[in-house]
Every structure is written in structure tokens, then in C-alpha cells.
């Protein structure tokens, strides 16, 4: 069913009883051309673009839980392309452009809101670093603006400009960046993939990868054996465990990142604000809650829950930046398990096994990448060739000495 103003009126007049499910509850067939492990944003986007752009119709997405139960529903919904390195900026800008056309593409309201992302700076050195980043963005054709302190005070009057240690001197603004409704992104891609014939199989956990003569022939699952021509892994958070089933050695650690939402308030924060003094970011959801997060908990974890001490630290940073935040009550907190790669950048690549493909290592930046990740991964699977904007995101880049180290922190996952 195509959604339109007409379909809304028609369904309203029939008591909203005739809406159809957005995707079929598929049961596994015995064989698929491509099986995607992981029904998160990236897995669903990959399935969608495989079927729609690259004409691969016989595709299944296997999800161990239900759609949206992983990181796609456990993030702070920010989309942006304000990166510096040539291995990152064209990729994330490709993603940003896909975001801008996504609602029309999917016929689905993902509530993209280009409210602007501003990264604050607190010292002359940090200002120079942000100018450099802004220039790097301009070189890829992406608009960035340096906002000086006086101008920023008019835009965002409620920040603590005179903090003793981290006075706010200004910020780098990308106006096209913003937020999108994360659940809607998963549902929209699922519905789109389903319409193009993809089988989405929920509650189907992969327990082993079967190989014969050095190639993957299928997967053992909780719903039995399913054969495949190509197998694509997009199991963020559990990549090491799924990779182990095919003896992959990966530069990945699983870490947990928390996020928080407050009680609903009237509109007060107009942008996504990133606090450069620590690691804190905040925006206001369309429902009114302030959504914010900070650093990862610091130690490897597979638990989808965080540590209270880190929660306290995030609150402290938030109140440092916005003193008024101390008067607001936090309603909920949650945590997602992420692949932290050794240089803080993702991996979209073939593996040493010819028909096994890998999409992992998104650290805490996976949501904004969803469309481009899906598109580039589908390109790789369908054509066996890397998409130009993902050419730096190789699995063997560490061995070759081409790490994409945006933070400049070296091979230490909890520093990215």
C-alpha cells in the first residue's frame, strides 16, 4: 500500500481498520542468492538497495530478535557529515544526500529534520582544528560555518559561556545535518525491501556458518538450515561472535554506549549541540524530550545496559554545558552494544572467504551512515566491487598502514 494524503483520509473514514502490515512475516525458503545476517538499519538498507538498485531479488534478512531491537532503536538519531578525513567525508556526505531523498525514496515519513549540528570549541587550538575540519568539508563540497562567540550567544543563549575550564568560544555548524526518527528508518527500509520481494525473517538466530571447499554454503539457524549463494554479515555489536563462526579474525571490541531522554519540555533546543570539551551531545525530540549521550563506558561489554558511574559523568558534562539541565528529570536511559574498531572507522569489505561479506565496526556512528552503508554494502555484494566512496573502509587497512583514524587516537578502541 502506498501512503498518501488520500490513503490517510480513506483509512480514517473506514475506522483505521484496513491498514495492512508493513512487511510480511516470512518463513525461510531453503535457499537464497543472498542472506543478510542482522535486521538492523544497515542490514535492512542493504537488502532494500540490493533488490531495488542492483536487481538481486532472492534475498533474506535474518534477525535474531525483532526489527529495531538492536542499535537502530538504541541511538540518539543524529545524522551529519561533518568529518575531516578523505576516507570519511565523501562517504558520510553520500549518506547525507541519501537521507535528504529518503522519504520520497521509501514513501515513508522518517521525520528527517535538518535542524543543524553545532560542535562547540573551548580553546584557540580547538578553534583551529575545527576551522581545518570545516575547510576539509568545503573541499568535498559540504557547507560548514564557523560561528563566533557573539553570534553563538544570540543563537543559543542558554549555554554556559563562562565556564572556568571550558569557556565556550564558538562552534562549527553544519546546517544540513540534524536528526531522523530511528525506528521509522528501520520500518521504512523493511517495508521497502519487502515490497521488492525480500524475505524478512524475525526471531531467527544464526548459530553456525556452513562451509564446503572454502566457500560458504549456508547458515544453521534456530529455524533450521538455510542455503545461500552469498552471505553478508551486518550484525553490529555481535560481529566478533558471528565472525568467529567463519574463523574471521577481526579488529573489533564490543563496547556499550548509553543514551538518555528527559521528560517532555516545550521546544527549547533548536539544534543538535555537541560539547567539544568532553564528549556530550544533545538534541530535542519532536515529542519534547531532551535526548543526550556521552562517552562509551570504557570496558568491553555485551550487556545492553550501562554503568551508573558513566551515567553520572554524562550528566555532569551536560550540566557543565547547559546549567539549566540540572532542573530537568531524566525519564529513561538505555544502552547499545557497538563494534568499536581499532581506528574508530567502519569496515565494508570482502573477507578472505570469497562469498562472505562484512559490514561492521561502526563504533558509535552507525545511524547516520545507514543509507550509505546499505547502498555501498549492496554494491559490494552485487558487483563484488567496492563502491568508490567506501574504498578506504577496507578490512586489511591496518595491515597496509592505511587506518582511517579520525580522532587521531591510535589503535585503542576505547579512545575513539
Amino acid at each position, binding site marked *: 500500500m502506498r501512503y498518501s494524503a488520500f490513503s490517510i483520509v480513506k483509512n480514517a473514514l473506514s475506522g483505521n481498520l484496513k491498514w495492512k502490515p508493513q512487511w510480511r512475516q516470512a518463513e525461510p525458503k531453503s535457499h537464497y542468492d543472498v542472506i543478510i545476517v542482522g535486521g538492523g538499519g544497515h542490514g535492512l538498507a542493504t537488502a532494500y538497495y540490493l533488490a531495488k538498485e542492483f536487481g538481486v531479488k532472492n534475498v533474506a534478512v535474518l534477525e535474531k530478535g525483532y526489527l529495531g531491537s538492536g542499535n537502530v532503536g538504541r541511538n540518539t538519531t543524529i545524522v551529519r557529515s561533518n568529518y575531516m578525513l578523505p576516507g570519511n567525508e565523501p562517504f558520510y556526505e553520500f549518506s547525507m544526500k541519501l537521507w535528504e531523498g529518503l522519504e520520497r525514496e521509501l514513501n515513508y515519513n522518517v521525520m528527517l529534520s535538518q535542524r543543524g549540528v553545532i560542535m562547540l570549541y573551548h580553546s584557540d587550538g580547538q578553534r583551529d582544528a575545527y576551522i581545518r575540519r570545516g575547510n576539509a568539508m568545503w573541499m568535498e563540497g559540504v557547507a560548514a560555518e564557523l560561528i563566533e562567540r557573539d553570534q553563538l550567544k544570540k543563537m543559543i543563549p542558554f549555554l554556559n559561556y563562562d565556564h572556568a575550564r571550558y569557556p565556550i568560544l564558538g562552534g562549527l555548524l553544519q546546517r544540513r545535518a540534524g536528526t531522523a526518527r530511528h525506528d521509522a528508518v528501520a520500518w521504512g527500509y523493511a517495508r521497502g525491501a519487502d515490497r521488492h520481494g525480500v524475505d524478512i525473517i524475525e526471531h531467527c538466530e544464526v548459530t553456525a556458518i556452513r562451509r564446503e571447499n572454502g566457500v560458504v554454503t549456508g547458515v544453521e539457524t534456530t529455524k533450521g538450515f538455510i542455503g545461500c549463494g552469498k552471505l553478508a554479515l551486518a550484525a553490529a555489536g555481535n560481529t566478533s561472535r558471528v565472525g568467529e563462526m567463519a574463523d574471521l579474525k577481526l579488529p573489533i571490541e564490543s563496547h556499550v554506549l548509553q543514551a538518555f531522554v528527559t521528560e517532555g519540555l516545550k521546544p527549547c533546543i533548536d539544534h543538535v549541540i555537541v560539547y567539544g570539551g568532553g564528549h556530550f551531545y544533545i538534541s530535542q525530540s519532536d515529542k519534547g524530550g531532551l535526548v543526550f549521550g556521552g562517552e562509551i563506558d570504557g570496558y568491553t561489554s*555485551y550487556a545492553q545496559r550501562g554503568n551508573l558511574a558513566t551515567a553520572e559523568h554524562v550528566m555532569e558534562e551536560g550540566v557543565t554545558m547547559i546549567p539549566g539541565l540540572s532542573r530537568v528529570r531524566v525519564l529513561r536511559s538505555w544502552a547499545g552494544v557497538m563494534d568499536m574498531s581499532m581506528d574508530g572507522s567502519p569496515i565494508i569489505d570482502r573477507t578472505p572467504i570469497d562469498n562472505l561479506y562484512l559490514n561492521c565496526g561502526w563504533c558509535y556512528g552507525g545511524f547516520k551512515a545507514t543509507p550509505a552503508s546499505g547502498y555501498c554494502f549492496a554494491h559490494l555484494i552485487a558487483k563484488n566491487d567496492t563502491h568508490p566512496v567506501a574504498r578506504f573502509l577496507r578490512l586489511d587497512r591496518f595491515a597496509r598502514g592505511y587506518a582511517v583514524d579520525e580522532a587521531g587516537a591510535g589503535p585503542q578502541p576505547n579512545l575513539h
Partner: protein
Amino acid sequence: MASLITCPHCGVRPKEEFTIRGDASLVRPAPTASDETWHDYVYVRANPRGRTLEHWQHAGGCRRFLVVERDTFTHEVYSVTDGAAFARENGK
């Protein structure tokens, strides 16, 4: 819970006093080892869901390096050993 770590020198202390330095099960290769061995040591991680060994430094206390054996899913801490003692026991 990994909120509290029992330092063998200082007793039960909050996690904030510690700096985490990652996987302690890795053995530093010889300087003459192959590129592949060094690559695996620096970049590749077993990343188990379950028991793991990690280096934690008690930076806000005795400043000793410790080896913490911990479950990455339940966050239960099984043992905390002084780093030097751990190295002697394991012949590193």
C-alpha cells in the same frame, strides 16, 4: 558489577579511580616477529562474550597495573591480580 573493583593493594574502590587499558591476554611478540604477528597483537581481538582478562591501572590510587578477570555480559568480576604477579605466574 564493574562499578566497583577490589584493588589487591587498596581494597574496594569505584571504577572511576581506574584507567582501562584493554585486553590482558595478549602476549607482546618478540621485536623480530613477523608483520602478521605484530598486526594480530596490535589490532586483532578475540572479544569474547563471557570471561575476559583486562589491564586496569589504579591511576587514582596505588598506580599499580592490575589484571581484572571479568565477564563481559554479566559484568561479574572473578579476580583482580597485581599486574607484576600476573606476569610472573604466566611467565611473561
